[in-house]
């Protein structure tokens, strides 16, 4: 009897066992290992040697590239996140319009999000080519001589922003579903009161979707700070290290220079940077994010 009871209590754990194993072996394990590794000097091939906080000290005091890469990445995020948000919201507004054939556009705008990063970088490599790229060709039609996007250090970061913003589809879709859920009677009431379309957008649409905006800000902030695929394949960090993103810095330290411990320390510093930035955004959210439930409760009082 007693044994049976024990078995019954253990049953749920047995059911979730595969996921617990998966979490421990593939997520928590590597995570902890990388934290431990960040306190060692390890060139993979030879035996690791304990370094204490050596890796962290070296990063902050002796490695100018650390600050440069961090600055480039933050600069990228500062341009990319707002730009991406505005484009996604604008597209979402467009595809919610009740126009014939709008589903076709919905699909077209979403396609880039399905395409793999490798394909995107090849496509943009051609588009941005200074001599025979299509972008400079179009610019030449309106009389502008386009820069050598991927050769000129002054333009390369912007080229990466451009290529990244192309994958805006997922965010657009999230906005779209949220906007679709706004009850139509709100707009009807507003237009009866004489509110313009612009007024409706800022007074009704924006306040209602602020939780979604918060979600999109955070996810795009994190993905911007972790950007690697595009720079790795499109510019390789160049020209002249102008797009040597933090992700690239970590990747090269680990797999090119074989400094696994140092790279782990780099990665944990970025984790903390992301943690701080995300919590700032969260803290600020109480000032500009409105939840429906909050408003209702407020009324009851």
């Amino acid at each position: 009897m007693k044994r049976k009871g024990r078995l019954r209590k253990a049953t749920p754990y047995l059911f979730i066992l595969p996921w617990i194993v998966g979490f421990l072996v593939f997520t928590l394990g590597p995570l902890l290992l990388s934290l431990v590794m960040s306190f060692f000097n390890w060139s993979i091939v030879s035996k690791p040697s304990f370094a204490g906080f050596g890796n962290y000290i070296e990063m902050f005091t002796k490695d100018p590239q650390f600050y440069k890469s961090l600055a480039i990445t933050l600069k990228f995020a500062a341009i990319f996140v707002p730009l991406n948000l505005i484009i996604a919201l604008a597209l979402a507004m467009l595809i919610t319009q009740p126009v014939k054939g709008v589903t076709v556009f919905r699909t077209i705008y979403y396609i880039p999000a399905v395409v793999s990063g490798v394909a995107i970088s090849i496509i943009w490599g051609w588009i941005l080519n200074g001599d025979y790229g299509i972008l400079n060709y179009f610019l030449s039609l309106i009389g502008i001589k386009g820069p050598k996007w991927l050769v000129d250090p002054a333009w390369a970061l912007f080229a990466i922003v451009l290529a990244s913003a192309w994958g805006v589809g997922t965010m657009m879709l999230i906005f779209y579903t949220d906007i679709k859920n706004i009850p139509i009677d709100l707009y009807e009431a507003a237009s009866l009161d004489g509110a313009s379309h612009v007024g409706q957008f800022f007074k009704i649409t924006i306040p209602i979707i602020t939780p979604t905006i918060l979600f999109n800000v955070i996810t795009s902030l994190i993905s911007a700070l972790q950007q690697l695929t595009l720079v790795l394949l499109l510019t390789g960090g160049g020209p002249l290290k102008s797009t040597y993103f933090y992700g690239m810095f970590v990747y090269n330290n680990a797999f090119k220079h074989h400094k696994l411990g140092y790279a782990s320390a780099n990665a944990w510093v970025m984790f903390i940077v992301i943690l701080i930035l995300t919590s700032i955004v969260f803290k600020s959210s109480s000032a500009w994010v409105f939840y429906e439930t909050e408003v209702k409760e407020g009324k009851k009082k």
Partner: protein
Amino acid sequence: MKKKVFVATALVIAMAASLMGCKASDKQNADGVKSIRFASWDNSKDLEEQQKLVDKFNEAHKDIKVTLEAYGSDFDTKIAAGMGSKDAPDVMYMWNYPAYYEGLEPLDSYIEKEGQTYKDNFYETLWSYNKMGDTIYGIPVGFTTHVLYYNKDIFDAAGVAYPTAEWTFKELADAAKKLTDTSKNITGFGFKRVPDPYDFEMYLWSNGTALSDDKGNLKDYVNSDASVQVLSTFQNMEKEGIAVATDKDGTDEMLAGKIAMYINGSWPISSFNDAKLNYGVVQIPMFKEGSPSVSILSSSGLAMSKDSKNKDAAWEFIKYWTSEDLNKARIQYELPVLKSVVQSESIESDAIKGVFYSMLQQSEGYTPTSFKTQEWSEISDALSTAFERIFNSTVYDDPKTVLDEVAEQ
């Protein structure tokens, strides 16, 4: 309740441990067949060929079973991870000895057993690219030197005589000037905008200097007058508009007929032949008349993991893979490394392939900086950024200033 969670966790850990434990015991096969894992970096087309050759070995050796593992472009990551976890493949392709030699088995004693004639049959220059210090870690499989490729059609159209082995860079520049035709979008010469410093060192050798001294110190070498002269030569051609700095190695531009000449290894030959490009090759031009140019070698060897459980079987396979028969079997896509094979197939008289061997003989006795220092990957990073500053047309930094800076780092 808490106790239950503890039990469950303990169970999970025990299971995970037993899962990991499974791996350790699969090395020894019950029927006495020794299994050898063989890692290759090649992909698709070449792999099929390699699999056939591996199968042939397995048929002839009933007591050894070799499995071909195709790592492709992940080769470095996987080899490094394998060495880290003491689970590296028994036999592997290798070129980057400075990075991996600590995980490799020294092969001198194995070679000694085969005798001096075995060793002498390989080109001497190749051994120095397969060792660290005085210890040999790999048996040469293939190599390429660099040569000057030229597009005969563009030369004929401009009425310029083909390059010769006596050319200096001055003559190359003169020819490039005549060949450049902006109306047709043709430039005389092309070179990489971001050169690999490993490759680029050959130009410094040709001009009597190097990237660094014996211990890998850059100072007074990379910024010597001779080095500055080399980089200025290239930069001036670009500034003059008779050379173009290419994104990649320049093969695309060559194929498209946009450049008339460029310097590269043997890799593009098959794509040039497929595209029916009317091209020729010749020794790299000299910097000073009378002192033949030197080429860097890109070589591949076969190395053995020092953690291999079946070293004798692994050596048996390495010997097979580097034998005369296999050198001949690979002749379509790899330059043979054995003197006997080069002789019997009379490759030295081949108008294309022969040039690579004459560059090989001109290049004896040079050691790349990557073999002299533990910090090559960082140095290489700094150097390629420095070269890029000189060759990037939006910057065009002064060679002397840039090289002085990089030497101080």
